[in-house]
Each structure stands twice: as structure tokens, then as C-alpha cells.
């Protein structure tokens, strides 16, 4: 009995080590990526969000600085929309291989990542990784509180790095909480936000030496330039 348990746990440990191996490969692939900036176009196809296409300039500096520069209001999906190859850190997640598969004609592996600090909001995600190119092709946020998000990522090659050119998100998220002045509550209750968001990246400039000053706050109190 003890032996069986030992074998099972050994297999588990091995499965976990295997999962992080894929993530380590990805991190190593992008270790040379210090920063990038790109033009982003977001197209919404959501009934409850009648928005025109939104454009912005996206700045990234490793490991996790991000800035959106838009003269206009810009909505950017939190989960799956923003490319940060360093976001799946070993210290933050437990990972295990779910299956090996052929994805889009290429060898791939599915990993299940569970946050170490579990909260009701984030139950984890399933990544589909192209094992030859070491890129994440699909991110599926696991259903929690009725929230389901799937991101499918297509890549291009820029200055030595595979960077996203197109991310297609399928959203199905619940309505918001009630309370407060309705003029001050957007997307108020009763209706789920369901539909597609397509994000297109272009005009990449990689490792151009972005300074930290770029990531400072804007002047108007009503404006946002960094995620909160």
C-alpha cells in the first residue's frame, strides 16, 4: 500500500516537474526579451458592450511593467489579452500535464495551472503549448463564478522573438454586482457579457530600451494608464 502511494506521489512529482519544464523552456526562450512596444487594435463583438475598435500603443518591460498609451478610452481584456511570457512563475502556481496532443497540426501539450494562493476569483487555467516553438497557443481560464474565458494566440516573428499578432478571446462573464448610482455603474446587472474580443498587435519594436519614466501616471484624475 505504502509502495503504491510512493509510486503515485513519485509520478505526481514527476508530472509537476514535467509541466514546469515546458514553462521553463518558454521563459528561457524569452529571456532575452527586455521590452517591447506595439500598436494594439481591439475589436469587440459583444452585445452588451457596443464599442468601436480601440487602438492604443502597448509598452512592456520585463518582468511585469505594462503601460497603455491611448488618447482615447481603451478596454483591454485582463485574462488572456496581454502577452507576458513571464507571468506563469513557478513560485505562484502548481502545474501538471493534462495531456499531449496535436494542436493546429503541431505537437502540443496541455498544462493545468492552479494558483498556489487560491481565491474564489481565480481557479486556474489550462495552457496549450506548442512544444516545438515553445509558445503558448491557447489559454483557457477555468470556470469560476460563472466566468469563462478562452484565448487563442497566433504569433509572428519579430527581432528574434515569437510575439503575438492576433489574440482571439471568447468571453462569457457574469453581470456585475448591484448597488450605487446607476450612472456610475457600467454593465449593470442581469445580463452576461458574452462574445468575442479580437486583439491585433502590429509595428513591434523589440528591446528598444524603454525607460521606467514611460510607465508613470497621466495628469487627469479620471484617466488610467496602468492597470490597478
Amino acid at each position, binding site marked *: 500500500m505504502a509502495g503504491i502511494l510512493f509510486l503515485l506521489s513519485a509520478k505526481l512529482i514527476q508530472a509537476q516537474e514535467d509541466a514546469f519544464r515546458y514553462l521553463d523552456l518558454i521563459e528561457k526562450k524569452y529571456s532575452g526579451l527586455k521590452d517591447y512596444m506595439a500598436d494594439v487594435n481591439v475589436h469587440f463583438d459583444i452585445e452588451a458592450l457596443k464599442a468601436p475598435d480601440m487602438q492604443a500603443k502597448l509598452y512592456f518591460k520585463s518582468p511585469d511593467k505594462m503601460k497603455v498609451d491611448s488618447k482615447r478610452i481603451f478596454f483591454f481584456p485582463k485574462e488572456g489579452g496581454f502577452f507576458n511570457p513571464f507571468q506563469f512563475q513557478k513560485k505562484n502556481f502548481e502545474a501538471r500535464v493534462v495531456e499531449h496532443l496535436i494542436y493546429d497540426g503541431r505537437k502540443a501539450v496541455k498544462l493545468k495551472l492552479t494558483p498556489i494562493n487560491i481565491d474564489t476569483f481565480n481557479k486556474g487555467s489550462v495552457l496549450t503549448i506548442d512544444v516545438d516553438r515553445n509558445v503558448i497557443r491557447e489559454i483557457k481560464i477555468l470556470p469560476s463564478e460563472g466566468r469563462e474565458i478562452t484565448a487563442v494566440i497566433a504569433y509572428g516573428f519579430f527581432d528574434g522573438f515569437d510575439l503575438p499578432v492576433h489574440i482571439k478571446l471568447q468571453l462569457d462573464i457574469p453581470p*456585475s454586482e448591484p448597488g450605487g448610482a446607476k450612472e456610475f455603474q457600467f454593465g449593470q446587472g442581469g445580463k452576461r457579457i458574452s462574445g468575442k474580443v479580437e486583439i491585433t498587435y502590429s509595428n513591434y519594436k523589440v528591446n528598444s530600451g524603454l525607460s521606467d519614466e514611460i510607465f508613470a501616471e497621466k495628469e487627469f*484624475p479620471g484617466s488610467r494608464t496602468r492597470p490597478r
Partner: protein
Amino acid sequence: MKLFWFEIYKTFSRWRTYISFGFIALIVILTEVVMKLSANEILYRMLRSLEKDFLIFGNVLNGWFVTAFIMNSLHFHIPFLITLVAGDIVSSEATSGTVRFLLMRPPSRSRIIMAKYLTTLFYTTGLVIFLGLICVSLGLILFGNGDLIMNYQVPTIRIAFVPEADVPIRMLLAFAAAVWSMTVVASLAFLFSTLAENSIGPIIGTMAIVIVFFVVGNFPFDFFRTLSPYLFTTYMIFWQRFLDNPIPWQEIAKSAAVLGFHSVGLFLIAFAVFNRKDIKS
């Protein structure tokens, strides 16, 4: 035209006409200053639900949003300020006794009542435009420019974006629509003014109707929902539709037509009453 200018002169020679403008300026300045001081709290409440799933950038709490918010909040305040003049413009002549002097003159009663009505509309337009100018100019100074996000419940719950470049013309149309809406209130107060011999009655009467209709039209019960299409207050917020995406032109046209019929109908009744009225006082 001479009669019209005399009515304008008389109306704007009275200090009480300026109470309305002063009140609006005070409300707008106070609201916008408080909103600026509470910007973070407001942003949090605005975006709390969306920020679970979206990163939001840009100048969300901008001058246009603040303008739309203020316009949306003054359901009763603006109508009340309009009745102060519209409800008084005919009845005050009876109160002061000047109606006798007025109606003994060569100009027909039709011309006199028309001049008074045009003056009422002029004042109404001026008041709404003043509200718009002060909201927008102060709003842009304090909060800057940006796209406009509007929250809609009808016919579906949704958020509509109006690109920054389109907002000025949309706002202009929205204010024109607001003027059109307020014309009904002005016409109602004007009618009461022709029926009464003091100003308090028309003001109270008009406000009572506006408030009751508004409340009844918004009761979430089936019976009141069936009444709602017959109440002019239901159509008074059609100015908001110019800030929707896409603009529902058909719905706007319907609302404008309903309100237009109300205004014309109310004026025609006032016209007939005034022309046939015996001046006994």
C-alpha cells in the same frame, strides 16, 4: 417682432429670471468640483464591475461624461426653473393688472400670446444652452477630453462608446433634444399661466404633473408600464439616445414627434383660451 422684443425685454428686466441661471451655475460648479475631488472614488464605483475582467485605460471620467451625468441628474430641477418664467409670463400680467393695458392695444390677442410663447421658448432654449455651455466648458477644463461611455438599460443593458471626435456634435444634438423636451414643460406651464391669475398655481400644477408622470412612468409594475407610452415624460429623456451607439434614429424621431405634438397641442389650447378669455379683473 416688436412685441416679441418687448416681452424679452420685460422678462429679462426681472431679477427672478436670473435666479434660474444662477442656480444652474451653482449646481454645475458644485457638482463638478466635488466630482473632481472625488474622482478616484467615482472611478472605482464606475469601473469596479468591469475591472474584474478588463484593464481600463484612458480618460474615462472626462468632461463629456460629467456633462451627461449632470444632464441626467436634473430631471426635476430644470423643469422647475423653466416653470418659474413660463408659468408666470401670462398670469403675472393678470396679477399686476397690466393685462388690461396690454389687451386694449391694437395688437391682437393672437399676436400677444404668440409673442409671449416665443419668449418662453427663447428663455427655455437659453437656459438649457447655458446649462450645456457651463457643463461642457467647466467639465473640459477640470476633467479634460475623451471618449464618452454611456450606460444604458433600455432596450438592453449595455455600454455604448462615443468616440471623442463624434462627441461634440452628438452633445449638440443631445442638447437640442433636451431643449425640445423642455419645450413641453414650458408649454404646459404656459397653458396653466393663461388659465390662472397668479403664478404659483401654474408652477405647482406643472411640477405636480411632471413629477407624477415621471414617477408613474417608472414604476416597475405591469399596469404602470402600460400607461408609460402615454406619458410625455417617458419621451423626455430621448436626448440620451444621441449618445448611444448606433444612434436609434427611428426611436428619436418617434419621441420628438410625440413631444412636438404635446407642445403644439398645449400651445393651441393656450392660444384658444387666451383669445376667448374675458378680462374681468
